[in-house]
């Protein structure tokens, strides 16, 4: 039995609860820090005790899973058509963001996106026909995540859409994502007007061949290096992709010029990339997906390998629980709205883009992105506290993605569902906001805390099935 060394040491106090207790301490020069407290997500104390008993084994499993995520080397190796390259893709299959959802439960923007895709595929000639077909049962739906893919917002991928191919050179796995359409009326926000389909066609016939040729010319583009640099340039590569898009542009521009069929095409393609600050988002998502998929399937690991929303449900997957989704209602983001719109117009949170947070980017790296702190309360200090809070629930720190302001501390990476459940701290996510009606498009951008239910359910399932 050891003896307490308290009396002989300098008293330093962590105060949890009533803040006024720090007054007496500071009056006599004792150092103290206030620690915030939140109730645990699960009321099942026995399950927490069980995970504590197996802490060493879970810790080892998480370390192994996280190492695979951190060691991932995602590179852009090429492009192809969804039907040709995405495993399990079919002509009558439409991939969507988030966990599985039926047409009947889909939100407006997702339905709008699907209608746009059906018209784009030539399967329906107008919105009414598209809606009938979508609801007819002839079209199958599946999450992008179950096909090694990710998609922002509605996340719609249909058979003839061109996709980026990202390879994790460390583990050999692949991830896929479409080309980003830009802002305004776009499919991913559920818009399906003729201009939307027209842009998609241009992206298929002009943008895609040019980018594909340029990537082939270069051989590959190291996406991880671009993200690491972009974090030092004010991006968190979810809500801000300006630096990463610029870096990508620098990498690809000479190759586009060399390989384009004519200068005019090259100029248009480069203008498109240059004119869309979020062009890199889909790549940062595919990079994250390729990294996290490598961390899947580690027995006894409580590491979160996917967070995704379909506009109705928020879903979570763990490394140690296979393909099972743990879901709960998707919340409406706390956002800054475009003029003329308000929270009343907003759709609940949607998109696979929370894969960036799962990978230690986005909201987890917001301390690196002072330019967008308006989203989080307006001061750089607010952004820093959000990132610092995420270290409470992550299994480790990133070895490549670093935050200058935190003395180049690695971003909090690898959410441990046990830590989240115990501390009550929920992942902090940057996001765009879609109008709840199909066809309107984006109405704002902001942040949100992930909802508690999926994490509570994931924790409880994980702990109960721990042997």
């Amino acid at each position, binding site marked *: *039995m*050891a*003896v*307490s*060394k*308290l*009396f002989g*040491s*300098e*008293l*330093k*106090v*962590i*105060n*949890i*609860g*009533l*803040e*006024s*207790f*720090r*007054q*007496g*301490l*500071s*009056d*006599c020069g*004792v*150092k*103290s*820090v*206030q*620690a*915030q*407290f*939140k*109730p*645990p997500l699960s*009321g099942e*104390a026995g399950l*927490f005790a069980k995970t504590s008993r197996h802490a060493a084994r879970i810790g080892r499993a998480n370390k192994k899973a996280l190492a695979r995520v951190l060691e991932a080397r995602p590179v852009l190796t090429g492009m192809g058509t969804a039907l040709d390259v995405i495993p399990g893709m079919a002509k009558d299959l439409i991939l969507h963001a988030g966990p599985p959802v039926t047409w009947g439960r889909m939100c407006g923007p997702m339905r709008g996106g699907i209608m746009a895709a059906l018209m784009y595929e030539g399967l329906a000639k107008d919105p009414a026909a598209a809606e009938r077909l979508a609801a007819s049962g002839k079209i199958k739906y599946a999450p992008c995540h179950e096909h090694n893919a990710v998609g922002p917002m509605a996340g719609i991928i249909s058979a003839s859409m061109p996709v980026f191919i990202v390879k994790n050179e460390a583990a050999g796995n692949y991830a896929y994502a479409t080309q980003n359409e830009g802002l305004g009326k776009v499919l991913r926000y559920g818009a399906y007007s003729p201009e939307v389909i027209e842009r998609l066609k241009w992206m298929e016939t002009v943008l895609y061949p040019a980018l594909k040729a340029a990537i082939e010319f270069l051989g590959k583009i190291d996406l991880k290096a671009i993200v690491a640099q972009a974090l030092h340039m004010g991006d968190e590569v979810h809500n801000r992709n300006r630096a990463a898009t610029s870096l990508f542009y620098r990498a690809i521009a000479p190759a586009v010029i060399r390989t384009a069929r004519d200068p005019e095409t090259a100029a248009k393609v480069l203008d498109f990339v240059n004119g869309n600050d979020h062009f890199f988002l889909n790549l940062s998502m595919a990079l994250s997906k390729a990294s996290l998929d490598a961390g899947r399937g580690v027995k006894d690991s409580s590491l979160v390998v996917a967070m995704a929303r379909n506009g109705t449900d928020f879903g979570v997957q763990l490394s140690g629980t296979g393909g099972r989704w743990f879901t709960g209602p998707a919340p409406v983001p706390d956002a800054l709205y475009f003029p003329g719109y308000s929270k009343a117009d907003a759709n609940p949170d949607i998109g696979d883009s929370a894969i960036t947070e799962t990978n230690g980017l986005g909201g987890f790296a917001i301390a690196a992105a002072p330019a967008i702190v308006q989203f989080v309360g307006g001061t750089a*200090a607010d952004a820093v*506290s959000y990132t*610092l*809070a995420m*270290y*409470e629930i992550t299994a480790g720190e990133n070895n490549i993605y670093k935050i200058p302001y935190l003395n180049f501390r690695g971003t909090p990476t690898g959410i441990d569902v046990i830590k989240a459940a*115990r*501390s*009550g*701290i929920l992942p902090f996510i940057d996001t765009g906001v879609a109008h709840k009606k199909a066809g309107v498009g984006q109405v704002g951008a902001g942040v949100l805390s992930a909802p*508690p239910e999926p994490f509570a359910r994931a924790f409880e399932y994980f702990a109960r099935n721990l042997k």
Partner: protein
Amino acid sequence: MIKTIIRKGAYFDSVSLMQVAKKLNALDGVIDSAVVMATKENKGIIRASGLLTAEILKAADNDLAIAVNARTICAAEAALKAAEELLDKKPASSGGSDRKAAGLEDALKTLAGANLAVISVAGRFAGALAAQCLENGLNVMLFSDNVPVETEVALKREGVKRGLLVMGPDCGTAIINGAPIAFANSVRRGNIGIVAASGTGLQEVSALISNEGAGISQAIGTGSRDVKIEVGAITLLEGLRMLAADPATEVLVIVSKPPHPSILKKITAEIGKIRKPVVAVFLGGEIKEKIKGDFYPAKTLEEAAYKAVCLAKGWKPAKAREIIYDMNLKAGELAKTEAAKKKKARCLRGLFSGGTFVSEAQVILPELIGEVRSNAPLDKKFGLRDSMKLSGHAVIDLGEDEFTVGRPHPMIDFTLRSKMIVSEAAKPEVSVLLLDLVLGYGSNLRPLEDITPPITEAFLRNRELSIIASVTGTETDPQTRSKVVKGLEAAGVLVMPSNAGACRLAGEIIRLSGSKARGAGLRS
């Protein structure tokens, strides 16, 4: 007009919420309000006040519920807005690191070398949090109550195993390395170490010691349940060992209610091993056996404090009796004067904010005035059937659960006691009110402002009334003891240096008035 807001998943500690509710109730047009976490227990509490709206009924444990009953819609909406502003207000930081740590891990990184966690979150979460703190090598002071006894035992055993001190649960006071923790007074440092199973007892003993010119090395709170048989005095014994080994501690004081006999045996065995003088007060029970030559039992907190002072200063311990005797003499004179003002012997009512003072009053008063009833009786025989309907001589602990549910502790919030001061004074059978005022960190920072109006009112209602009070505190406390004493005296209160002294004076006044008005039949 009742209006409600629910904030999903917004956790606040209950004291902050009660402070918000108090401020809302003070707003114009507000009849009543509730600001609570929507737990089952809280729903039960607000059901009684008619504030349990359908929305709150639907809300979950981790949702915050704000309900306001106001005279107009405008007033209700203004109050809800005020509530949200109060809740969202970022408190001014007080020294140390400015930034709030997001959680325990962040705090451990922010404050390198942290060695004590002070935990005051809701009881149902406190146990797990304390366990996590122990895992991270922190000593723990658990202020929270409503922690299951099995959890307490598990935490304390874990603490012993790891060489970490576990104070509490329900530990209100400690002084570690000179620093006041939670409800504690600013006392001199010195060579007297205290282990106390009673927060108020610890405050009284340490403040009396300091006011007599001696000082405290360490004061360890064990939590009120520590000496029960289920817990086995784990922390009290551990505290004795730590103080025995501490070179800065030369005299030990134990403050407790009477422990279970088998536990007392363990304690006396431990005392026997200590090669330093030990003073012990077990309020309501005394150690009769001769444990060792330098063991000094005491009947009251006051006696324990003064004995410790004598030992600390190298005086004979018997001198403590002389100090108390001198005070008694003065009190006797004062009692005669007061008693002379009264035509008849009437009843004494003690309205206390400190539970241990209620015990001490029951040790002292019966010898002077006979039967004294209480809602916290030392002997169950003298229990009160209804704490709101007092008869005969009675002493009330306003810190008991029956009074504190949904309200801050009476040391912070005087509202209820203020009402009772006036209502008891207005009763024709009452002639003496006995009060305690506990100063220090954590307690009401403006005690005079809050207590003077009801006292003035009480004297107006009852021309023969005497009000006796003790003020537990020191000159360096945030409230400054002498300022409070002067203020009370100016209001007509007779202030004594200790609770024991106040009890004796109050008892003497009754006794002397009784003997003058022979046959008034108090005991009938």
